């Protein structure tokens, strides 16, 4: 991985290591939300929620745009998928092992019957 890609990965994992930020991601992946509407969902200050949104933005997980006085945030589906894709890679390791167990336990691989 290049230095830039490493830094991007650090930012991505840091961003998703927080429960509130994951919850914000679930909402903004469903559609564009204004930051003030998001802030109303949590038992914390507007500034605190804005900070969470900024962390997610730096990690490339969401994008913000201005509309009048509002800041609108929406999720980047591709960026989130890359976390799910890591579990999918592990799933492939498992599918390989399970296929080998299936092969090993076939009666004709052990003895004639």
């Amino acid at each position, binding site marked *: 991985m290049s230095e830039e890609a490493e830094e991007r990965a650090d930012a991505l994992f840091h961003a998703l*290591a927080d429960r509130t930020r994951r919850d914000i991601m679930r909402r903004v992946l469903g559609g564009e939300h204004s930051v003030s509407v998001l802030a109303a969902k949590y038992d914390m200050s507007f500034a605190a929620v804005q900070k969470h949104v900024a962390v997610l933005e730096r990690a490339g997980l969401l994008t913000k745009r201005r509309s009048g006085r509002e800041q609108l945030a929406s999720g980047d589906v591709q960026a989130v998928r890359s976390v799910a894709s890591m579990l999918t*890679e592990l799933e492939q390791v498992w599918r390989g092992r399970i296929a080998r167990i299936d092969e090993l336990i076939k009666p004709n691989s052990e003895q004639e019957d």
Partner: protein
Amino acid sequence: MPVTDVTQDLDNLTLTITADFLAPVERIWQVYADPRQLEKVWGPPSYPATVVDHNLTPGGRVTYFMTGPEGDKHAGYWHITAVDEPNSLSFDDGFADLDFNPTPGLPVSRNVYTFTAHDGGTRATYVSTYESAEALQQVLDMGVVEGATSAINQIDGLVGS
């Protein structure tokens, strides 16, 4: 294919895989209880596994290394945390040096395997949990990706034949 269900829990970094095998629970347990059988299934064809220590008791260890195409060796260990023969097995799986000392700073996954009688065969449930997204990334960086690729090829081979 025996895999019947796969669940990814992104919040808890947990992968749960369910598979149905056409053999009794005792037969599936044997795959784990016999080091010669375990090494046949653990590593992909391009990284065959060799099991060295094999003590399937709580507090016991299973150690193994996998040998890559260039002769490169990658060691790992299981630290067994619970055994209920032939129904379940829990262990921590980590990376080790070639003397099987756990490598500090590398991630450890928690694993629970459960085998239950189902429709005349066995339903196996494999649950693996990682400490953090960084840990998951490290596990993939450590080379299981190559294993994954050849496992995919192997599955394609099975499906295509």
